[in-house]
């Protein structure tokens, strides 16, 4: 229960650029043998499943947390990365994200853009839901309209959609009110899943409690917070997939227990949360740990809205922003697996260069000067964090670096739910500062939308919108990929640090361990939606002859 | 012929953290077959320790300091555990003060009596055994749990257990002290009758000089871990030869005639931490002289009694040790016969 990775939502707009970021995967790749992953050097991949292995067998997986929370199993409401992981085994989207964040076909085999506000999707004609019914344009239209009507945060992420219409049985047209660059990226995540709308409408399926999708697996059994059993969807449209007959998922909150299971072979694939786990598993035979670079990143909320907070003065916020040593957080708290980042997630194509920002220069004298100007030399503030690893470590490094400019940080560690209540429960929120992380998504513009509290209402309790910032965010999300957008992104990153109500810190890696003697897996080197199980249907079991 | 029981200069200490308490300080005592001996002493005099020593039932912090204790010629403290159990089974019987506590509270009376009789040649007829100790309605009692019995009934059951094997020596440690006075008489009478019938010797430990004197053939008075006076009951009661015996007899309120003032023994009993250098009673004794404090008295013969007192002979000659209210203390019932020619 400690590892509830509550993930922010964000919108990515269509990404076509293919800048490969490799920095993120260097630290944790401890793969010990390369026999089962022959193609592991393929660009953008940490590992590629050996498709020459025979299909079949059962894969035992352990992960931190179950998919279902209070929102149930409805993928369109899912806002946890953990939920996306498991739901992506059953549900699919029109498009998906490739190894280098390029948008790839999925349920739509291709798409056209007759103009910069119209998208025409050509659906595959061989897709069936696992109940055997063929997917039609009506399902797609219905699904997207359902998401737009839900009014969830993801609705906003889909952008200014004006209409969704079925052109014919296999063609769907989406019209936007204005250009929206991250649109395809936003379609590529689980909340944009295509649901069996006919079954939902006639009441034979309750998406809150049952799952019925087009994906590679169907749910055979689920015990909340204990286990899942997914069995292969025999009618799956991708050839040769899934590569295993069944996936048994156990929900194991305790990191040590997952490590133990991996070591003694009772699990073949586990997700890991501790940044030292790769090192810890170094000596274990047949165990590989891959560190996936994520666009997720930690950020600090500096409450400007609560009158008792010291951060109502922007100079104090800026000073704190400057003084925090991102490199130390990355090296110490994240064992070198994270990277300093601006508001556009480092590692994502088109993101700004964090080293050029005030936070990257670490000018402590300037920070002290700002504090002196604001009359806050002996500042003490409380930092509310939740207890999921490695957030406490990040907080403690922040504490250390702020001590350098004479600022005392008192860390208040709360369990997840209480933290939520404290930070989001009331407006203004009664806290000085808080630490959390956002999923960074697949387009640099998506996550920046959270810096406009008028759009991201959950932030209203501790920040107010800044007109300049909001303008830059809008620009970044509407200007197509190119030098103009790059310039806007650079300005945006600087503006965020100048505003300093929410300051980005470092990216957050995720780790996957697996038994090389049991399974051959595929894994992207980078991930925007916190989903290390994205390519699970490619996995093949290794059989000892 | 060897005496049935003989204690020879028996000394026992209790070891407590940081100190040692001497309970027996050189006891000399013999019990012949068929004899009934009363041991009289106040708390701390060592009589219970002596009783326990006879069955080697002392608690673990008790240590034999010196001396010997023999039953039928067998030196108890040299026996193995197995041999000791045989002696207990074949030759000894015990009755204790707390009648209900002496029975296992979780077992029905009949069941535990049967358990106690098993494998020792006694009759397994529970009802018969209970009848023998004159319990009315033995069947009902056999079905009862100990806590449902009165003290007198429980003590009879305990006696039945102890006497079932017709032991050679019955050690009775204040067996009637916890009983109501009416019942006391019946129980004592019964014990003596059963013993006489079986030829069992009795060692009766009590703090009540007069009561013991009525029942037993011989009385031994203990003080400070030694037997200070030992002789025929009637003699000891009527003509105590030791100043302590005398004081004890005079201090019992029952012995005082109406209007007569009691003669208390001044001071309080000693707690010995090692061998007493002299007479342990010296501090409370009206007749004590310097020698009494520095030299351990040796037994002297005063008429029928054996006495541990330096001045016994002079005092015997004077009237200093006359017992007042003698009439009331002398036995009104004759002592139980001594068992004929067996000794």
């Amino acid at each position, binding site marked *: *229960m400690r590892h509830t990775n*509550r993930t922010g*939502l964000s919108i990515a707009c269509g990404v076509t650029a293919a800048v490969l970021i490799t920095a993120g995967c260097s630290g944790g790749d401890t793969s010990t043998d390369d026999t089962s992953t022959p193609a592991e050097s393929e660009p953008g991949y940490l590992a590629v499943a050996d498709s020459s292995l025979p299909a079949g067998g059962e894969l035992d997986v352990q992960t931190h947390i179950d998919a*279902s*929370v*209070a*929102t149930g199993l409805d993928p369109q*409401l899912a*806002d946890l990365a953990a939920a996306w992981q498991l739901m992506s085994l059953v549900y699919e989207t029109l498009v998906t994200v490739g190894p280098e964040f390029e948008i790839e076909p999925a349920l739509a085999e291709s798409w056209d853009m007759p103009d910069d506000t119209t998208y025409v999707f050509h659906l595959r004609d061989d897709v069936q839901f696992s109940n055997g019914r063929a997917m039609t344009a009506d399902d797609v239209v219905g699904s997207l309209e359902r998401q737009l009507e839900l*009014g*969830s*945060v993801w609705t906003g992420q889909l952008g200014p959609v004006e209409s969704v219409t079925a052109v014919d049985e296999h063609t769907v047209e989406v019209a936007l009110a204005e250009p929206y660059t991250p649109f395809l990226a936003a379609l590529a995540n689980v909340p944009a899943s295509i649901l069996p709308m006919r079954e939902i409408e006639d009441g034979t399926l309750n998406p809150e409690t049952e799952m019925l999708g087009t994906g590679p697996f169907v749910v055979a059994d689920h015990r*909340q*917070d*204990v*286990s899942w059993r997914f069995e292969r969807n025999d009618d799956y449209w991708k050839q040769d997939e899934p590569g295993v007959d069944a996936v048994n998922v*156990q929900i*194991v*909150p*305790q990191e*040590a*227990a997952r490590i*133990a*299971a991996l*070591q*003694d072979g*009772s699990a073949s694939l586990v997700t890991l949360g501790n940044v030292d786990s790769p090192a810890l598993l170094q000596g274990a035979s047949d165990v590989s740990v891959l560190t996936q670079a994520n666009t997720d990143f930690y950020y600090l909320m500096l409450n400007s809205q609560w009158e008792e907070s010291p951060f109502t003065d922007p100079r104090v916020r800026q000073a704190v922003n400057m003084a925090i040593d991102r490199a130390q957080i990355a090296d110490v708290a994240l064992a070198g697996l994270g990277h300093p980042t601006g508001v556009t997630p480092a590692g994502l194509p088109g993101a700004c260069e964090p080293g050029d920002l005030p936070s990257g220069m670490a000018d402590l004298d300037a920070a002290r000067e700002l504090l002196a100007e604001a009359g806050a030399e002996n500042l003490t503030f409380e930092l509310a964090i939740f207890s999921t690893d490695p957030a406490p470590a990040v907080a403690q490094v922040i504490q250390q670096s702020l001590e350098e400019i004479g600022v005392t940080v008192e860390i208040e560690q709360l*369990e997840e*739910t*209480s933290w*939520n*209540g*404290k930070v*989001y*429960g009331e407006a203004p929120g009664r806290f000085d500062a808080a630490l959390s992380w956002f999923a960074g998504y697949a387009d640099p513009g998506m996550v920046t939308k959270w810096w406009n509290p008028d759009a991201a209402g959950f932030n209203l309790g501790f920040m107010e919108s800044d007109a300049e910032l909001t303008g830059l965010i809008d620009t970044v999300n509407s200007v197509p990929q190119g030098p103009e957008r790059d310039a806007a992104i650079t300005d945006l990153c600087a503006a965020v640090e100048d505003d300093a109500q929410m300051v980005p810190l470092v990216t957050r890696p995720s780790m996957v361990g697996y038994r090389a003697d049991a399974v051959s897996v595929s894994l992207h080197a980078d991930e925007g939606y916190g989903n290390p199980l994205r390519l699970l249907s490619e996995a093949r079991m290794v059989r000892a002859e | 012929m060897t005496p049935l029981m003989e204690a020879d200069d028996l000394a026992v200490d209790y*070891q407590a*953290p940081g100190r040692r308490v001497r309970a027996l300080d050189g006891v000399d005592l013999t019990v012949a077959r068929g004899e009934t001996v009363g041991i009289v002493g106040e708390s701390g005099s060592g009589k219970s320790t002596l009783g326990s020593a006879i*069955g080697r039932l002392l*608690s*673990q*912090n008790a240590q034999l300091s010196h001396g010997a204790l023999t039953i039928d010629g067998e030196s108890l403290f040299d026996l193995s555990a197995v041999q000791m*159990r045989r*002696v*207990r*089974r074949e030759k*000894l019987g*015990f009755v*204790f003060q707390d009648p209900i*506590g*002496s029975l*296992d509270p*979780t077992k029905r009376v009949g069941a535990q009596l049967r358990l106690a009789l098993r494998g*020792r040649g006694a009759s397994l007829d529970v009802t018969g055994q209970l009848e023998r100790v004159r319990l009315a309605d033995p069947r*009902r009692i056999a079905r009862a*749990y100990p*806590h*449902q019995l*009165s003290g007198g*009934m429980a003590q009879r059951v305990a006696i039945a257990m*102890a006497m079932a094997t017709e032991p050679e020596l019955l050690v009775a440690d204040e067996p009637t002290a916890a009983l109501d006075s009416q019942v006391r008489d019946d129980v004592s009478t019964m014990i003596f009758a059963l013993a006489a019938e079986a030829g069992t010797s009795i060692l009766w430990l009590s703090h009540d000089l007069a009561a013991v004197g009525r029942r037993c053939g011989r009385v031994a008075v203990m003080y400070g871990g030694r037997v200070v006076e030992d002789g025929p009951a009637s003699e000891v009661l009527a003509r105590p030869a030791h100043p302590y015996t005398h004081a004890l007899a005079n201090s019992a309120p029952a012995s005082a005639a109406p209007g007569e003032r009691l003669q208390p023994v001044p001071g309080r009993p000693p707690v010995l931490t090692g061998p007493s250098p002299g007479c342990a009673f010296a501090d409370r004794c009206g007749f004590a002289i310097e020698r009494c404090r520095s030299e351990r008295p040796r037994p002297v013969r005063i008429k029928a009694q054996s006495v541990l007192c330096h001045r016994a002979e002079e005092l015997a000659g004077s009237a200093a040790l006359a017992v007042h209210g003698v009439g009331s203390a002398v036995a009104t019932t004759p002592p139980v016969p001594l068992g004929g020619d067996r000794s």
Partner: protein
Amino acid sequence: MRLFLWWLRRAVSAVATLAGVSILVFLALRAMPGGFAETILGPFASAEQQRELAERYGLDDSAFVQYWRWLQAAIGGDFGTSMISREPVASELGARLPVTGQLAVMAVLTALFIGVPLGVLTALRARPDGGGALGRLVSGLGVSLPEFVLGSIVVFVFSRYALGLSVGGYVPFADDPAGNLTAMILPAAVLSVFAISATARTTRDAVLNVLVEPYVTAAVARGESPAFIIRHHILRNAATPVVVLLSTITAYLLGGAIIVEYLFNLPGIGSYVVQAVGRRDYAVVQAGVLLAATVFIALNVIADLVVGLIDPRLGVTAEGRSM
């Protein structure tokens, strides 16, 4: 009649205790910081979702109304629905009870079969002069080993070195008896270290107390052998505190061997309830705690009955001095 009244009194006091427990839990849950819907759904949920949730679980009603509603349903056997799994709480707990139950039974049986003989032996070897300090040290060590230290070490050792027993990987006994046992032995062993030591200590104390009872002296004086006395007089008389302790340990374990369940990833009740506290899954916490309290009370009653069977003086139907 007497028996009936005894049961009646026990029942009344049990109901009172359970009512108290349920009110306390209810109040505690409502006193937790953070609003309902916000904290349960997280920051990203829409106002619509929050409204719907509050409506579905009646969270906007006053605490009194909520409790009353819960109580009425509970009396009818309906303990509510988990907000997370949307399943009836009763069936969820029912599914987890066997795990915790098996753990408790294994640990308590171990304690019984190892702790009791150990306690008897050490009592018989006790010496007044502070001897047996070594035994005291060892048994003291047993009750001083926290589960989270011992458990961590066991998890490490057994996952690092293939020693034949698995860490985690629970399967129901009915599905795979061997697999079930290999998964349960370690957690049960970790739990039983405390249980064994506590049992041994209690047994030792009880036996020492019985050893100085006059009826034991009387049995020794009759020339009975130590084995005979232990079998016929000591075990039964020393059993009372041991029975009470074992029932307490069982209740404690059933109430949640939380740390062990957590370390070994067993789908038991304790870890479930703790998780539910974290997620404000009210119905689960309420029912879980109530279940533990019921077990506690039931075990107390059982212990009383057993004690009564062992020692007629303490029994339900114990008669006064009747003759």
